[in-house]
């Protein structure tokens, strides 16, 4: 009976094809061979299914993983990404590997050759670190920051319509009055950040109740360009974005208990075309799932 059902489900076989490779990932051989071995089955158009991958019900899960994997990161269409996005994807990938979130355990269990060793991680870290260049700010960067500063009217009336992200979360102007719970120098992408927490967050920090964070917690993370001088003094340049995480395990149950939003440039342009943009947020924060999806280690004042 079980055998018959097993044979029967083999006919439920949604297609999984390998579309053409339009612009393959380029990197030194040592790096590329690790990436090909560990990532390409799900993150490229060169998926190599073994016989056991093609057996339902495993096949259904495999097909899903490949579909999701390609949507998030596809090394076969790599050249269509702007250089800054390529770098960001690589740093994110290395961080996913360091955190043990990638490659997926269920994948390496069946494909042990795809496991990433400590030595592989060292090679990948060294490679992405070699891509991070943060030279002193040039005239263009300085001018962009100055222009933005001049046009910034603090205390001036907010725009008539409050910007709203596609998932319904509105920009919260009050973040500026919240407390800073940490700062970050991001040498991977040349930005610097302040992470603000609202009163609920600050109380949770004081009470050491931060995993999970209580409902009502709100974080705002602000990113600026780094403006470095020749002596290595760095100050904030152009404002890039403000990102929010709003905790409500009921209201935002579908997105890991958090409401996510990002507003870019001083015009506060909402990020994302549809409410599905949150899958991107969650994917990046996934390695922190045992830490309530929060990267920041807060400090108390």
């Amino acid at each position: 009976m079980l055998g018959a059902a097993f044979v029967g489900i083999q006919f439920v076989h949604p297609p999984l094809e390998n579309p053409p490779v339009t612009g393959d990932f380029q990197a030194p051989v040592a790096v590329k061979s690790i990436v090909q071995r560990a990532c390409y089955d799900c993150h490229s158009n060169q998926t190599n299914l073994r016989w056991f991958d093609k057996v339902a019900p495993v096949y259904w899960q495999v097909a899903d993983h490949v579909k999701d994997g390609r949507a998030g990161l596809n090394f076969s269409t790599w050249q269509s990404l702007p250089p800054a996005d390529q770098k960001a994807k690589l740093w994110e990938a290395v961080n996913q590997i360091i955190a043990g979130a990638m490659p997926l355990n269920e994948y390496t269990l069946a494909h042990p050759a795809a496991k990433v060793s400590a030595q592989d991680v060292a090679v990948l870290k060294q490679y992405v670190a070699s891509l991070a260049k943060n030279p002193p700010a040039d005239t263009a960067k300085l001018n962009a920051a100055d222009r933005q500063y001049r046009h910034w009217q603090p205390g001036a009336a907010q725009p008539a319509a409050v910007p709203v992200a596609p998932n319904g979360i509105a920009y919260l102007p009050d973040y500026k009055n919240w407390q800073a719970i940490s700062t970050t120098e991001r040498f991977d992408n040349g930005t610097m950040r302040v992470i603000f927490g609202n009163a609920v967050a600050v109380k949770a920090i004081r009470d050491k109740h931060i995993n999970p964070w209580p409902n009502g917690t709100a974080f705002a993370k602000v990113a600026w360009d780094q403006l470095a001088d020749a002596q290595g003094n760095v100050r904030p340049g152009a404002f890039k974005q403000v990102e929010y995480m709003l905790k409500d395990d009921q209201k935002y149950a579908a997105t890991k208990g958090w409401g996510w939003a990002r507003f870019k440039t001083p015009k506060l342009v909402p990020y994302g075309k549809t409410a599905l943009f949150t899958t991107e947020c969650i994917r990046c924060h996934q390695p922190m799932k045992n830490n309530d999806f929060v990267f920041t280690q807060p400090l108390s004042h």
Partner: protein
Amino acid sequence: MQTKPIALGALLALSACSQNKVPAGQLNKAASLPTTFNFSMLGLRVLTTFINRRQATTATLYGNDRARQAALGGTGAAQPGEVLALLTWRQQADPNWFGARIPGALQSLELLRTGPGSMGRPAVSYQYFTGKDLTQRADTLGQQARIAYLLAQRPAVLP
């Protein structure tokens, strides 16, 4: 053929396990201020933030409304009633993100206050605290330069 579904089922069941290398629910203790200092009671807002790559430090500048208004004015001339605070930390690698540095050991707090002065110039008081307990230092060496530096900073754009 009977064993195969069972083996595959076991495989799927195992996939529910996951690695956990990330420390969970941790505060950044090294960077935290002594609770007895009551820094938050000063009621200051973030004005801007800095990094010193050579010294591997990071700092956040806070100010009250008057200090903020004066800094936005960009005149550099202090008005009475300003409060500015600069917190400086040694940096540490971010345990949760390769590619980032976060505050590590608390290094110092510089606290500047302006009060009514004479001849149109406010009186400026400057206090310097160091270490994780923020012990006040009496040393006044370089104080004038630090006062000038603190009063010269431009706020970061916070739309």
